[in-house]
């Protein structure tokens, strides 16, 4: 059964398509977690069956850095999809993630890396993503906003069981869901609750963090 869908349609904001040159740095995002150092990611081995890291998704983050989805391997992580032109629902996705982080026990509070991947490959350039990160005061230590290409965005959404549709207005109708990944990229939890932290989901995140960072 599908998770309950939170869908929305809002008016378009981003009308100007600007030609933006993307400076590509070689370094991948850190997905750094302070505190005890988890075992180094074993990215050379094949991810286990059930790992979403089996899909090679090329991504560019809000600093223009190029990486692949499995850069998060080795860490418990949160992943969701959104788009920056979204005025009502997507801020609530960010709020839910922020509150989830701040509801965790003190030793792991604000330490779970978060990856938000955009649906909007046309407008969400690294610059647009960076503007959102600044506007929402998203800490680089845990937040990564990223975009892929059209084909891989569709595949990533399929992998995460997220539905989205581009509307003639340029907006996106989409399901909103926060997803918890274990260190190997297996989906261990998901919640459709946005705006607030889902208490059951927070518990699950805490449990998963305890299991991977002793």
């Amino acid at each position, binding site marked *: *059964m*599908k998770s*309950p*869908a939170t*869908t929305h349609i809002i008016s378009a904001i981003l009308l100007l398509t600007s030609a933006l040159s993307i400076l590509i740095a070689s370094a991948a995002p850190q997905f750094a977690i302070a505190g005890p150092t988890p075992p180094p990611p074993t990215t050379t081995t094949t*991810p286990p*069956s*059930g*790992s*979403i890291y*089996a*899909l090679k998704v090329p991504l560019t983050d809000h600093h223009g850095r190029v990486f692949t989805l499995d850069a998060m391997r080795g860490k418990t992580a949160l992943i969701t999809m959104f788009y920056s032109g979204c005025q009502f629902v997507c801020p609530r996705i960010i709020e839910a993630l922020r509150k989830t982080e701040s509801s965790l026990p003190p030793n792991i509070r604000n330490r779970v890396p978060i990856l938000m991947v955009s649906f909007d490959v046309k407008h969400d350039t690294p610059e647009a993503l960076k503007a959102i990160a600044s506007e929402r005061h998203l800490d680089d230590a845990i937040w990564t906003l990223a975009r892929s290409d059209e*084909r891989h965005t*569709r*595949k990533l*959404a*399929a*992998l995460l*069981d*997220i*539905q*989205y*549709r*581009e*509307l*003639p207005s340029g907006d996106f*109708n*989409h*399901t909103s869901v926060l997803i918890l990944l274990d260190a190997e990229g297996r989906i261990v939890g998901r919640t459709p609750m946005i705006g607030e932290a889902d208490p059951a989901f927070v518990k699950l995140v805490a449990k998963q963090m305890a299991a991977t960072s002793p």
Partner: protein
Amino acid sequence: MTLRSPPRQARVVVSGLLALCIGGAVSAVARAADYVSIAAGEFASVLAGDAQVKPSSVAAFAMRTTPVTNREFLEFVNRNPDWARGRVSRVFADTQYLSHWQLPRDLGDAAFAHQPVTRVSWFAAQAFCEAEGAGGRLPSWLEWERVAAADAAHTDARANPAWRAEILSWYGTASSVILANVGGMANAYGIQNMHGLIWEWVDDFNALLVAADSRSQGDPDKLQFCGAGAISLKDRDNYAVLMRIALLSSLKAVDTTRHLGFRCVIPVFKGPK
């Protein structure tokens, strides 16, 4: 450029051309199937939001004349063993993937070479189409719906009650019947088996959120694999097509079912300007 070419003129087999332009050498593309080019045009989809104001524009593409068969999929698996049953990652296909084949790389006696392949996930179907050549993919819903609107003589036969009744009758047939081989009568585009044989994956299956609103009106479980969600779309004339949307919108990308297969599209060779 004519937007609506006469159907027979539109029927151009392009696989030879594509083999030349994609790989430079014919051997670069291991593709046996025929593709037929479908000229660019306008189409009024049953998806309300898209067609409310004006018909959608559909760019030109070339579509396989028939769904992919067991034999063709077996050849793909032999070339790409990561897609064999038992080896495929669980995030790409469920446990019933190709379960009707006797062995991971042997059809056996129960699956026939020229039957459409079924029990394939969206990811597997997508991988097959990508291996058909540069730009190969599953058709979008709009592309599929446009081609599926044709009967033998007209590119849009949706207003014909007799034809609607005919395609609808398939949905009432027993699902235990053995799948027929692909082929048979072509529609006005020269495409076969759009109706009456299998359900088909589309590229943007996870863009069909039409059920999101209708689902909330009843028991979600009851709307998973039946046409109930279509009724609230208020277009019974297109019931057969709405059933397709209801099914596709209920699927996850790893799902496989006994009657769910696919066909591919590839770009149309445009030639030098």
